[in-house]
């Protein structure tokens, strides 16, 4: 964690035109899992402004290396070796230090290691598919993995997910909690996917597409993709007579 004084202001209101709405019928499961009544807007109280923060002591040595964290000694996962890195900032551009990121993905063939999953593509005995890391004081993070494959799913009869990595992000307040998916630059499947298209604005979709980053590629080892994450900003506490920010 940084030495910066913890911030206690309320979070900026979420732009729910930017996020996907709950009801997006082309993504069929959303039809019966979307609330029909309006959300009740709630000015942030202490219950939303506070949130759990996790220490680096939580992390094991290989937690940020999916190529090796499930592999037998001396072996490694099969697939295109990549580094995913970037910065977690808030809407003001301020780095979010100490943010726990968890990620999960299918293997290079598009197969998830999960009891409920039965896709014909084979499991990789050296690939689990989960990892985690905590951002440094400036909000930077990085991890190693293999590039996941595309994956068919029972929505339309011939629907395929683009290659993607799921991200779960903790900020500093529980109201910043976010789960999203990262896609890869140039993948034509992105623009055909009903889950991607649950997001109405093309610019918002582009915010989920990681760019190939040659400057951070390690020659003869792994290519790099850069994926920055933006969490909700928060109001400053300009006036001390207010309990919890402006």
């Amino acid at each position, binding site marked *: 964690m940084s030495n910066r004084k913890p911030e206690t202001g309320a979070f900026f209101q979420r732009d729910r035109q930017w996020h996907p*709405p709950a009801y997006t019928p082309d993504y069929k499961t959303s039809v*019966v899992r979307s609330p029909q009544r309006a*959300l009740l807007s709630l000015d942030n109280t202490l219950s939303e402004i506070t949130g759990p923060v996790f220490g680096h002591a939580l992390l*094991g040595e290989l937690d940020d290396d999916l190529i090796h964290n499930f592999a037998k000694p001396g072996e490694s996962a099969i697939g295109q070796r990549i580094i995913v890195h970037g910065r977690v900032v808030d809407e003001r551009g301020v780095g979010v230090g100490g943010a726990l990121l968890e990620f999960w993905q299918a293997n290079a063939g598009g197969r998830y290691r*999960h009891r409920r999953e039965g896709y014909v593509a084979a499991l990789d005995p050296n690939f689990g598919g989960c990892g985690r890391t905590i951002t440094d004081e400036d909000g930077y993070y990085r991890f190693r993995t293999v590039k996941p494959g595309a994956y068919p799913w029972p929505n339309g009869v011939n629907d395929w997910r683009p290659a993607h990595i799921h991200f*779960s992000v903790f900020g500093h307040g529980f109201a910043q909690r976010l*789960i999203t998916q990262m896609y890869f630059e140039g993948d034509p499947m992105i623009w055909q996917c009903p889950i991607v298209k649950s*997001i109405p604005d093309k610019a918002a979709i582009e915010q989920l597409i990681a760019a190939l980053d040659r400057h951070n590629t390690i020659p003869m080892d792994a290519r790099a993709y850069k994926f920055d994450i933006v969490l909700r900003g928060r109001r400053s506490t300009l006036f001390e007579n207010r309990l919890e920010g402006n």
Partner: protein
Amino acid sequence: MVQSLGYLKETPSQTAGPYVHIGCTPNFSGISGVYATDLGIAMTNDKTLGERITLRGHIFDGTGTVLRDALVEIWQADAKGLYNSPAEMRGTADGNFTGWGRCPTDMESGEYVFETIKPGRVPYRDGRLMAPHVTLWIVARGINIGLQTRLYFADEEAANAEDPVLQRIEHRNRVPTLLARKDGSTYHFDIHLQGEKETVFFDI
């Protein structure tokens, strides 16, 4: 033209999908040996102060079918009403209580269970005390952005009656959707995503 405010846009949400367990509760999903334990399964230890309670319930979709692939996280104050968070400025919370828990709904029964303590009261923005409550965040396949709600305790009638958040619910017949039913040391709290009994969800 005026100056640009320069604010960034929040990264848009996407569904957690059916395999959220791989990343958030890998041991539960059958991936062992990567993390020693799944994060958030233990909120208390034997030194935690406060009244021990169990929270349990099911999540139902709009057809009344139980979700067996959801993930629930909770966030709550300790027995004295303090949050275990760097943003807690009123004092130091119980070091033996995390305040945060995570539980996947059972793959067969669909039930979620938290072993925790009953939270103390926390002030609202204007200083009035809120009733004891637990904040819930629900993600699953088919949910495009995590759903936020609150669990209140049905046996806290006096505190619930003066709670500033519950008071804001215009349709009073929806208030009971946020009340957990007491049964010994267990509180039952079912969540209905859609329909007649739809739970009140918040834009926080």
